[in-house]
């Protein structure tokens, strides 16, 4: 048995594919690759496949992580071409590695996540900067999600505006992604009084504990 870690980009064709369906997309990719994916024991065996951190619907990513367990020890030289041949539109492999079977589960290793939101609505750089400053100066940002109130402020670790090409302007944010304390980029945009649905959001980095 070995544990394969796949670093990949989730691109436009899978932009509107949620977390559960991403799981299915990986499962089918591995089935097409004919690699010996390991299944859980029991009455309803499930493929052993663990994603690092769910991506909100509509967000693409330059770096995602998933761990897959294989029943046999196979070298990366063999895995790589088999996997690449089987990829669906929307997944691009960045790096493959083998990792310790005993290593902690991926989701527990993630501590933060970087996002870049390119704004489709027009706003001046100055106005955006003001809003960002005001948000950062707040000690609390009470927000409601699914009927529960929470404080967004401690989840925002970094926030800044960045000029983009074609005259667009973007918001960069580093948000906490610890279990039970995960910041959502669209919530931050809303707190900045921006329309989260008029933004092209991508995850640019996943921060793991030991990094």
């Amino acid at each position: 048995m070995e544990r394969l870690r796949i670093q990949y980009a989730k691109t436009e064709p899978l932009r509107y594919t949620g977390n559960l369906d991403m799981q299915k997309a990986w499962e089918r990719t591995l089935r097409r690759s004919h690699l010996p994916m390991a299944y859980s024991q029991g009455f309803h065996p499930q493929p052993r496949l663990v994603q690092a951190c769910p991506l909100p619907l509509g967000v693409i990513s330059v770096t995602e992580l998933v761990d897959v367990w294989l029943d046999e020890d196979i070298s990366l030289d063999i895995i790589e071409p088999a996997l690449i041949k089987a990829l669906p539109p929307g997944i691009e492999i960045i790096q493959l590695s083998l990792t310790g079977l005993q290593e902690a589960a991926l989701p527990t290793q993630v501590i933060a996540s970087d996002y870049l939101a390119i704004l489709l609505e027009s706003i001046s750089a100055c106005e955006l900067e003001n809003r960002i400053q005001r948000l950062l100066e707040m000690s609390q940002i009470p927000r409601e999600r699914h009927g529960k109130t929470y404080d967004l402020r401690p989840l925002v670790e970094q926030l800044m505006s960045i000029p983009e090409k074609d005259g667009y302007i973007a918001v960069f944010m580093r948000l906490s992604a610890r279990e039970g304390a995960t910041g959502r980029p669209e919530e931050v945009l809303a707190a900045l009084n921006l329309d989260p649905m008029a933004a092209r959001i991508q995850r640019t980095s996943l921060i793991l504990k030991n990094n």
Partner: protein
Amino acid sequence: MVLSSFEIKERLERILLRVQKPGRYVGGELNQVEKPWDSVYTHIGLIFPDLYDLGLSNLGLTILYETLNNRADVLAERAYSPWLDMEEMMRQAEIPLYTLESKHALADFDMIGFSLPYETLYTNTLNLLDLAQIPIFSNQRSSQHPLIIAGGHACYNPEPMSAFIDAFVIGEGEEVIHDIVDAYQIWKKMGSTRPELLKSLSQIWGVYVPSLYSPRYQPDGKMIGIDKLLDQAPYPIRKRILGKLPPPPTHFLVPTIDVVQNRISVEIMRGCTRGCRFCHAGMITRPVRERSTKEIVDAIQESLDNTGFEEIALLSLSSSDYSQILELIPEVSRRFAGQHVSISLPSLRIDSFSVDLMEQLKNNRQGGFTLAPEAATERMRNIINKPISTQQLLETVRAIYSRDWQTIKLYFMIGHPSETLEDVYAIADLCKAVIVEGRKVIGKRANLHVGVSTFVPKPHTPFQWVACDRMDQIKAKQQLLKKELTGPGMKYNWTDPEETLLEAWLSRGDRRMGEVIYRAWQLGAKFDAWQDQYHLSAWQEGFRMAGLDPDFYTYRQRFLDEIFPWDHISPGVRKSYLAKEYQRSMAGTLQPDCREQCCACGVLPDYAALRRQYPGKGWKCPDVSPRRTQPRVLSPES
């Protein structure tokens, strides 16, 4: 002004996150075919007029998508009905209906093909034409507009939709679609008029161009007949079939969101020899043609390699009747079991043989075991020609429960001709007997799910003459079952009687029904197949505005010599045979499986030339010895 694909993409990005399940509206699935727009001569839009979630796996469109895109001179792209939230957003943002592949507006295509497997998609079809900014009525479209064609089982009575569709395909689409494309390309090269195009399409075997015919009615609304408006228009319009089934599709689209029937489907045979008298599919898909075991197994392997799906459905109208089933199932089981693949085999006969078959396919993902006795008394079974003894059913369920299945699903139908409350009580009694058997074998773990639909008389079946049950009768029968089918382990499902009513109006409708459909759509009817979206009052108002009596279509017992609105469409099975079958039904006489002995339904003489072209075992009509005493009548086949 039609929006460019670039403009559509730009506008889409601003609305997609505001709707439920935006993954429905973007395409990009594995095995999607994308060709540069200008690299082909003919652009075809294929539409399933309901949600993506339901349409993606439609096998008919899967076949057409693959075969059309295999042509270098053609591209075929898909569209489905947007859900209400998305439609509202699209209309607000003035986004026309577009294809998922290239995001081109449907109005930019040369040809649009609608899949119409059932009648409750009619209003959606109108709605999509409107959303595509294409005139809804055929006679308002010009050479500038796409040609609108439709096919599927509902089209065997094309009349209700004939004002909206330029040409219908009657029968199987695999070959005729290419004939249609060829004719279209020749017409386009010649730069000729739209009527010329329709004329040339009408000359293709299996194509019905409704504008070349005009129906006449008696003062009481019954048909006198249908007149040809063009000498060379065919009469009758004979359904198109293939002598041999082509290789099945293997490049299934793999959706990026969860959809219904998210799996590989392989048709193991087409047609059915059982002759159940209520069954539309069983009559119109004759003759039976089988695929070889090797072809099926190879197709499964190839499809698994192409898709990575974890579920396979082996499709047919009656799996137990596939002649090589004893070879196929062990082979499928040997090749694919242990690969975490689940295999379903629907439409099994009610006998222990079926349990043996299912046992071989059994795997850890199994659901319930489904059987469709349809009726519970011997009298009723003889009327519908589905003879299964109660004893045999009980033996079968005992075998099923004792081999580790905990849930059995039984399907029945109420409203069969001459059905009484006793026949309905018998359904309840039978179900109770089944659960008692389950208790004996596995105790309280035994479950029984009972699905009871309501019979709708369909064109081209022996029951096309009969009246439907009235609403109060249906409700009384459903009430009775609801009361009786309770208790631990028992679950009862029924069809909304209002939905049945709509299906009954439309399935035996005539050309005048087009106005009702149009009015109902204008009044807001769409997604009629969705129980929560159904607008009965819009339909009633539609009838009123069209000056038609809905009861005329549903509650009227037809005379045996009545001329029907669909009489000019020939499915091979003859009206005289259907009439004979209807009379046998009323006498309670069974008609044996026609594999054993030809029942002279009309398919063999009608397709004699095709049969000669494809001799051998694939075609399951028995050999018929030629009559010695009479000279043989030549078939009208060209």
